Structures are given as C-alpha cells and as structure tokens.
C-alpha cells in the first residue's frame, strides 16, 4: 500500500464511520454530531490558516459571522432560498477574510493577533448595533419553511445530519488534497520559516493572503450552514468566544492535522455536554482538560499520535 492510498483510506474510513452514524445514533446525538460537524468545518478552515500556514488569528469569528449573517439576512430580508444563501455565506466569509487579510497581513505575530481581534470586534459591534438589519441582540430566527435544501427539510434530524456531513466531507477532502499539494507544502514552509521561503522565491504576503481567504471560505460556509441547519443567527455566534473556540478545538485535536479539528470539536462538545449533567462548572472541566493537554500532549491528540506512532498522518 503506497503512502497516498493509506492516507486516503484512513480519512475515507473516518468519513464512512460518520456517515454510518446516521443509522445508529439516537436523535439527541444526531443533532449534537451534526452541530460538531459544522463547527469542525469551521475549525478545519481555522486550521488551514493556523495549523498549516502559521497564522495565529484571533478574529475568525468575523468570517464565521459573515457567513452566518450573509446567509441569514438574505433569507430574512431578500427571501433567498437555502441553496443560494449557503453560497452567499461562503462568499461573504471569503470576502471578509480578503479585506481583513489585506491589512492584517502587513503585521506578524502578536500584532497580527491583535489586529485580527480588533477586526472581529468591529464586526461584532456592527452586528450588535445595526438592529434594523441584524435584529441585534435577539438575532434572527430563520423560519422553518426557509430551511429547505433540494426538497429536504433541514430542521428534521436526518436531513440535517446528512447536510452537515456533506459539508464536512467536502471540507475534509478539499483540505486533505490542499495540504498534500505543492501549494500546501508552501503553506507549511511559511509556517516553519518565512524568511527561507521568501528566499526560495515565494511571496509570503500573497501566499498567506490566499491561505487566509481559503480559511475564510470554510468559516463562511460553516457559518451559513450553522444558521440554516439550526435556525438561529445570533450576535453571540460572532463574539470573541467564537474566535477562540476554533483555536481550542484545533489545539486539542492537533494543529496541522487534517482530522484534528473534528476530534477536538467532538471531544470538547461532549466534555461540556456530560460535565454539565453533574456540575454547573462545566467550563472548569474544559479548563482542566486543556491544562492536561498542554502538560502531556502539547501537540494535541492527533499531533501526539503522529509524533509517536503514525508518522504518515497528514
């Protein structure tokens, strides 16, 4: 078995397992895993910027929010159907990443973190204050009859699960292809040593901008899907918290691994879900988990597996 077949077989097997989940997961978990798959798509986009290209952004909620509101407002105010709204959300995320990136990528390191954070904060406040369009604090509840894609009712458990799965699978396959392509190799080179990459003839600014836009497209698609699948478009989903969450999921699952963001998002979701059954301090449990992670597996779950046993894992 060649390295490439092994890698594809591994990831397609993981996808098959998720698809099969539709058959045996009870309704409650069907909703949860659908949510995790959408959020993991967002995190995969984050990972393209952070894990592969080395861009530590604290402003991805702007791109997620652009997708969320890009789709949600068009459904609300322009009576767009789910399909075009998804596409609009995807493009809104990419466009917002291009605008923010053009300016933010003139900075590096800590300055880049702060500039992206400020961009996202500006976006969040814009959403909050333009109540006529966004309904501010309350958010937009998307009517059930607008949540229909290709004749399937996205508010029903199974169609929603499969819609989330389709989004996640497409994102995963594209990402796997991207990071193994020559363009992906350049992204990794930029993460490892920007100056050396420049002296091999690569324009770091242009390459990082492309990576950030791809990342924004993922975030936008995930945001739009989140609104349409779960029926709610709210400002809290574009707050700073949603810039930090994908970073935590990626760190937990393994930065710079293709499946890591999903593993991280799934684990953190169920950690909060189970711990909140017996304590109100569920975030404390998350905190402890993160401390343990930093102490014993700083490269995240899949990152550690790759280091110890699975050297071939992309």
């Amino acid at each position, binding site marked *: 078995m060649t390295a490439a077949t092994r890698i594809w077989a591994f990831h397609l097997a993981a996808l098959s397992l998720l698809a099969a989940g539709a058959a045996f997961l009870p309704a409650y978990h069907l909703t949860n895993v659908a949510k995790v798959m959408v959020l993991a798509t967002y995190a995969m986009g984050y990972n393209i910027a952070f894990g592969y290209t080395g861009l530590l952004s604290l402003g991805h909620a702007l791109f997620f929010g652009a997708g969320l509101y890009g789709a949600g407002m068009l459904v609300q105010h322009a009576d767009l159907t789910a399909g075009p709204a998804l596409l609009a959300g995807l493009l809104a995320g990419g466009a917002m990443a291009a605008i923010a990136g053009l300016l933010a990528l003139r900075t590096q390191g800590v300055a880049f973190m702060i500039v992206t954070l400020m961009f996202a904060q500006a976006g969040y406040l814009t959403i909050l204050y333009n109540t006529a369009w966004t309904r501010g604090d309350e958010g937009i509840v998307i009517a059930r009859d607008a949540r229909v894609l290709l004749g399937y009712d996205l508010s029903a458990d199974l169609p929603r699960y499969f819609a989330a799965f389709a989004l996640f699978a497409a994102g995963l396959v594209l990402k796997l292809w991207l990071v193994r392509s*020559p363009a992906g*190799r*350049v992204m*990794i*080179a930029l993460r*490892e*040593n920007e*100056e*050396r*990459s*420049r*002296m*091999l*003839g*690569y*324009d*770091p600014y242009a390459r990082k901008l492309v990576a950030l836009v791809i990342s924004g497209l993922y975030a936008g698609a995930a945001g739009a899907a989140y609104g349409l699948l779960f029926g709610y478009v709210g400002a809290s989903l574009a707050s700073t918290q949603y810039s930090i969450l994908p970073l935590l999921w990626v760190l937990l699952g393994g930065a710079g691994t293709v499946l890591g963001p999903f593993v991280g998002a799934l684990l953190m979701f169920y950690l909060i879900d189970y711990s909140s059954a017996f304590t109100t301090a569920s975030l404390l449990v998350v905190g402890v988990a993160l401390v343990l992670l930093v102490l014993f597996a700083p490269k995240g779950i899949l990152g550690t597996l790759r280091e110890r046993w699975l050297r071939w894992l992309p």
Partner: protein
Amino acid sequence: MAPVTLLEARGLTRHFGGLKAVDGVDFDLAEGEVHALIGPNGAGKTTFVSLLCGRIPVQSGVIRFDGADITRLPAHSRVRRGIAYTFQITQVFANLTVFDNVALAVQRRGGPLDGDTRAALARVGLADRADQRAGTLSYGHQRLLEIAMGLALHPRLLILDEPTQGLANAEIDTFKALVRQIVSDTTVLLIEHNMDVVMDLAHRITVLNFGEVLSSGTPDAIRANPAVQAAYLGG
C-alpha cells in the same frame, strides 16, 4: 572573448545608524566565474550580498542583473530572476523531510518534481537521506542540503554565505568538488573565510574592509597586494 557582465552594482550603500556597513561599493560579476568576497569580520560582506539578493533594502546605489535594474525588486522576485542565496546560519526547514526541502525549490521553478528533486539531492550526495527529517541531519549535511536547495532553483547566480563554516576537512573537499562542477552552468559568489578554499576555487576575489572595496583582482594579484596583506592576510 570579453566576459559578459551578469551583475553590476554601482555606489551601493547601506548604513545602520552611524555604522557604514556598505559604503559606495562598485562591483562587477562576470558570467560563469567563481568570485570570492573576503574581508575581516564586520567588513560588510553579508550586508553586501543581502543587498544584492534583496533581504535588506538598498539605501542608495543601483544593482543591475542581466541588464535589468533590480534595485527596488523584493527578494522573492529576484529569486525568480535567478539569484539564489544560501544562508550563513543554516536555515533548512527542520521539521520537513530532506525531500520536501528541495522539492520546495523545484516546484517554484516548475520542474518535474520527483526527478529534479532527487537529481539535486544526488548532486550533493544526500540521495539516500531523502525521507529523513532535515533537522536530524548532521551539521555538515544540513549545509549540503542548503546548497542543494540553491541548486534546485537552477539559479544564474548562486550566492554562498560562508558555506564551509563548521565543516570537517573531508567535507570541505567534497564542497570544493561540488562548486567546480556547479560552475559549468551557474555563476558563484562566495563569502569565505577559509583562504585555502578561496585561493583554490576563486577566479577573482574582492576584498571588503569597513564597507568599502579595498581591492579586486585575481587570487595572485590579491595575494601580492600590500594593502590587502596589511588589512586582512596578516602581513
């Protein structure tokens, strides 16, 4: 036949505060030569080649490469025009495989990825280490990998910044053989402290001192120059 000028610099200047790192340097590089740049520590050698390859912006002066003015071009565009630079302090991608390090150079140029990468590795004798992580190579092998990355760009001008620093004698011999082989298809500009290497390889030598050209000529002329002897060769 008169040699064709590949690169020329006129009045090249770069000051850092009060320090005149490079101060009005005129410099010509003929196509196909091995040109060594020597001078005491702090003479401005690395700053000078950094100006040539674009890592440091020029304050005043002009650089022409292959007839075109490249003074204001960013570094990555100069690489595309055929100027490759290998770092003084080894800067390979430590977490990538040896293969990927060289492949990054090959794919930028657009050559056949697998074939050209393995050819460049074979040229420096690292073919059997292609799958090893670059950071686990010995220091000498990392220096060779740097050179392989430069070669894989198929540059018209290869700038080597102290390539033999920290190499064992046997490795230096390998390096010398390599440069002699390279020079059939590329021009080499070499910063070097090891005078045996310089006298052995260079067709021409330029001596820098306090950011200025002290002298320039053939190895024999440089060796006989009293000013050079006083400043550098230790009289």
